[in-house]
């Protein structure tokens, strides 16, 4: 079997994206979803139920009394908070799969993914991009999911990738492409396809290192994910063996009308938001 075939098999064998989360997301996408129906979907999963109640009762919301009914918690959190909680919960389990090869610290891929999702939201809000919040959040959160699969296969090829990166001329993703014939972004796109995510998300994941290759209708989404990724890598959020060998896409900044001084402000807003998010998610964001 060729390496690519082996990886395709591994993608096929990946666990499905949690059914409860996908069903809840579909229900939430209906303009007039019913809380009772949503509660029926969610209550099947005890750990999701527990997490919803935990978030609702967290210090962040500072409610005067304890909420103990799932229905009440769902109403209180609202659709957006609920979506993000469900997605983060599912994504954290996927990224925390024990992997070697690409990671230095165990929770690193997850921290990087969460940071990228937070950064993407900050970019969207402060630069007023007209992009669906949840599509962006999902794409940013899952952008590096290909690394989860690739990590296990790349161990013996890793030295070759590293040598290319050391020349200073190739980014990590370019070195993957040159050494293996494909890269983690492409594999991530295949995983998203298998999970039956919408085309927008598949595209943004597949081209998060080469946004210019994204289909026009999904270009802006892909560009924001690409930029969010570059910025979290820059500030040092959960990068692995690849260090900072990631392209910054100068032209993107120009196109999105972001100036050097804006970057500092965005990093500041990101960090404050990240600290809050990590408290909620129980991640050591520090």
């Amino acid at each position, binding site marked *: 079997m060729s390496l690519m075939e082996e990886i395709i098999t591994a993608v096929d064998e990946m666990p499905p994206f949690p059914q409860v989360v996908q069903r809840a997301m579909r229900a939430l996408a209906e303009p007039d979803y019913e809380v009772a129906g949503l509660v029926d979907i969610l209550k099947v999963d005890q750990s999701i139920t527990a997490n919803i109640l935990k978030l609702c009762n967290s210090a962040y919301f500072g409610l005067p009394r304890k909420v103990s009914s799932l229905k009440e918690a769902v109403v209180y959190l609202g659709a957006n908070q609920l979506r993000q909680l469900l997605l983060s919960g599912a994504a954290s389990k996927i990224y925390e799969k024990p992997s070697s090869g690409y990671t230095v610290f165990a929770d690193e891929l997850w921290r990087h993914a969460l940071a990228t999702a937070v950064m993407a939201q900050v970019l969207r809000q402060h630069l007023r991009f007209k992009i669906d919040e949840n599509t962006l959040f999902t794409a940013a959160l899952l952008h590096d999911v290909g690394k989860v699969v690739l990590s296990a296969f790349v161990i013996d090829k890793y030295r070759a990738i590293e040598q290319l990166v050391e020349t200073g001329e190739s980014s990590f993703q370019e070195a993957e492409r040159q050494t293996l014939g494909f890269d983690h972004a492409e594999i991530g796109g295949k995983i998203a396809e298998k999970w039956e995510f919408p085309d927008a998300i598949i595209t943004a994941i597949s081209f998060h290192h080469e946004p210019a290759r994204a289909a026009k209708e999904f270009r802006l989404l892909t560009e924001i994910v690409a930029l969010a990724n570059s910025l979290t890598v*820059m500030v040092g959020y*959960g990068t692995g063996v690849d*260090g900072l060998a990631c*392209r*910054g896409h100068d032209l993107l900044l120009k196109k999105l009308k972001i100036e050097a001084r804006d970057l500092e402000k965005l*990093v*500041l807003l990101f960090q404050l938001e990240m600290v809050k998010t990590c408290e909620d998610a129980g991640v050591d964001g520090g």
Partner: protein
Amino acid sequence: MSLVTVGIADLKVSKDPGDTLVTYSLGSCIGLAIYDPVVKVGGLLHYMLPDSSINKDKAAKNPAMFANKGIPLLFKECYSLGADKKRMIIKVAGGSQIMDDAGTFNIGKRNYAILRKMFWKNNVMIDNEDIGGNCNRTMYMEIGDGKINLKISKKGMVEL
């Protein structure tokens, strides 16, 4: 013996010889370690941005996020544990860059430039540093002897 984590936009000082201060994953951020070998007092700062003038309100609550607020605070906290400016050993790491030809993503460079400027104005000399490139660094400081170790992506552990 305890490992004390200095978060992002955070600083810690100590005079407990059993402590190791550590700050993880310095990308464009800078890790500044200062140590007085006579009283064995040390401090470690992990700042993200050069200048707090971009948002004064937020800066007041998060001084360690910015070079211009965090650096003076780090020195002040070490002085309050008995350290003396004349004896300080100063080591600096971080300030990396992602790959960008036009240099617009140069927060790392600016983070380092402001530190040099502040030190120059205040007659402070850097004893050793490991700056720039596109690697990721984790910085450890032993309070017992002031030793600084760096864990660098692609290179492994080195003493600074």
